């Protein structure tokens, strides 16, 4: 479904992503992990169109994405969430999702956008009541709204950026289950970028690990967790929850 080949991104003299290639199959959940500064967010931003790659190709269903505007990429069927939720706070929850649905699809009527918004909100468990205020949402609610906004664009591939940041343990479990449910019920393929390994390993089919802009490991969660290079990278940094490696 998605084929990334020899992707490079340089910022001035700094190479953030160096020769990364990977592919994603229809219906799978790929986890993309790595410590801070490993290049995972840069890859995410290139997939979403926020940055143009310095070199390499990104092909989605056979069509080249590199260099397209972010909203064109959304129109092609790739939805994204933002790491730091930034909704329109003085609009209702439903209005937020409906705008995302309207602008995130081509040839969509306003009625279809409202329907897509309601469906997406139901999926993530947020109120579809038009009076429900966005300002009433907490951290977990805002993350759900991010997800609903991405789903309202009717994506075939969902890019989830650090969906767990700022959540407590039970909320993390819920968020992880949500991505699994989205794949199961809607058949949406997911690329999940995360800093924390823990909960992610439970849900993903395959994991790719990055360090210093290079891919250092790829495989099933258990393979990756036992990969000496991954252990080295994760034990070498002190901010990472390594409990997951032991769990898996």
């Amino acid at each position: 479904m998605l084929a990334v080949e020899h992707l490079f991104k340089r910022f001035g003299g700094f190479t953030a992503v160096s020769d990364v290639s990977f592919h994603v199959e229809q219906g799978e959940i790929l986890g993309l992990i790595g410590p801070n500064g490993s290049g995972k967010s840069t890859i995410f931003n290139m997939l979403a169109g926020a940055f143009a790659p310095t070199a390499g190709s990104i092909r989605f269903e056979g069509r080249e994405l590199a260099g397209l505007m972010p909203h064109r990429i959304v129109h092609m069927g790739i939805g994204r969430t933002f790491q730091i939720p930034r909704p329109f706070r003085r609009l209702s929850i439903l209005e937020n999702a409906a705008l995302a649905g309207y602008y995130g699809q081509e040839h969509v009527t306003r009625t279809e956008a409202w329907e897509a918004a309601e469906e997406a909100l139901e999926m993530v468990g947020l109120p579809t009541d038009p009076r429900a205020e966005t300002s009433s949402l907490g951290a977990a609610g805002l993350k759900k709204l991010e997800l609903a906004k991405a789903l309202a664009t009717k994506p075939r591939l969902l890019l989830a950026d650090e969906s767990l940041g700022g959540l407590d343990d039970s909320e993390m479990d819920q968020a992880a289950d949500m991505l699994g449910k989205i794949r199961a019920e809607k058949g949406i393929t997911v690329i999940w970028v995360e800093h924390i390994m823990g909960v992610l390993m439970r849900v993903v089919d395959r994991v790719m690990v990055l360090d210093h802009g290079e891919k250092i490991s790829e495989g099933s969660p258990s393979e990756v967790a036992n990969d000496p290079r991954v252990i080295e990278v994760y034990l070498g940094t002190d901010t990472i929850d390594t409990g997951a490696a032991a769990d898996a």
Partner: protein
Amino acid sequence: MGRIDTRVWLIVIAAGLFVCLAYVPAIIREGDLGFAVSDVFLYEAMINGLLLGGVLALLSLGLNLIFGVVDVVWICYAEIVMLGMYGIYYLHSFYGVPLLIAMPAGILLTAIIGYAVHELVIRHLLDSAPINQLLATGGLLFFFQSVATLAFGIDFRNLGVSLGSFPLTEDIYISWSRLAAFIVAAACVAGLYLFLTRTFMGTAIRAISQDREIMTLMGAAQGRLYLISSAIGGGLAGLAACLLVLQYDVHPFVGLSFGPITFMICVLGGLGNMVGGFIAAFILSELIALGGYHFDLEWGYVFAFAFFIAMMFVRPEGIMGRRS
């Protein structure tokens, strides 16, 4: 909650000031509370203030809409009203077009001017420093004034249509044109509110006024929303022109008599905040009306400006504005 409490206090203080300004001068003058309370001319002044507030609210609404969406203050906004007034005047007095046709034509004219101002001037300055945008719209103010002077001369022109007045009570007479202006303005405020809250386009306009960066990332046709807002803002100026042309003479500098007060209203209410502007319009119009009744008309403006300056110290972000 702290912010809402402040707003409530401000409204209470404004109401207190209003009562003081209404009655204290009369009590001092007459030495008698009873007379002040039963002073019919005072009530007439209050009602006229209320009616003036409607038109001022309409003017500030258009300016706030454009500012909220495009983030540019149209210094020349009142001059668009002036052009609309000329349009209606010429259509009616020169070409004999009935008022009921001339007025919609005037609204259409100003909507086109609003569209053109955005398309020809503002659009090219969206990424410029705010001071350049202000200078450009300020330049347009002089441009419009000069064009009007060249085209129409400096004569004061009167539509010559009087709707007359009617007695509200035995002693209080209300001018029909002022009442009509108030009702139309109020209806228009309500209509715009419904448009902004109940339609998709309105939702998009509210969204872009909150976060233009995200709307652009979402692929919203930003330029189109800007043009629509500018045209609606221009149309509101035309509607104000319809209401004002019935009450005032037209001349090239007529915009100066309500341009500054419109800005004060918008700033007092919180720039870009339509509800705040609506409230501020009535506060200032009552200050003008009551000050004008007790002293001279000019004193009314002195009170209004003094209140405005004091408020800028107390609450620089405006009545309903958010602290940034």
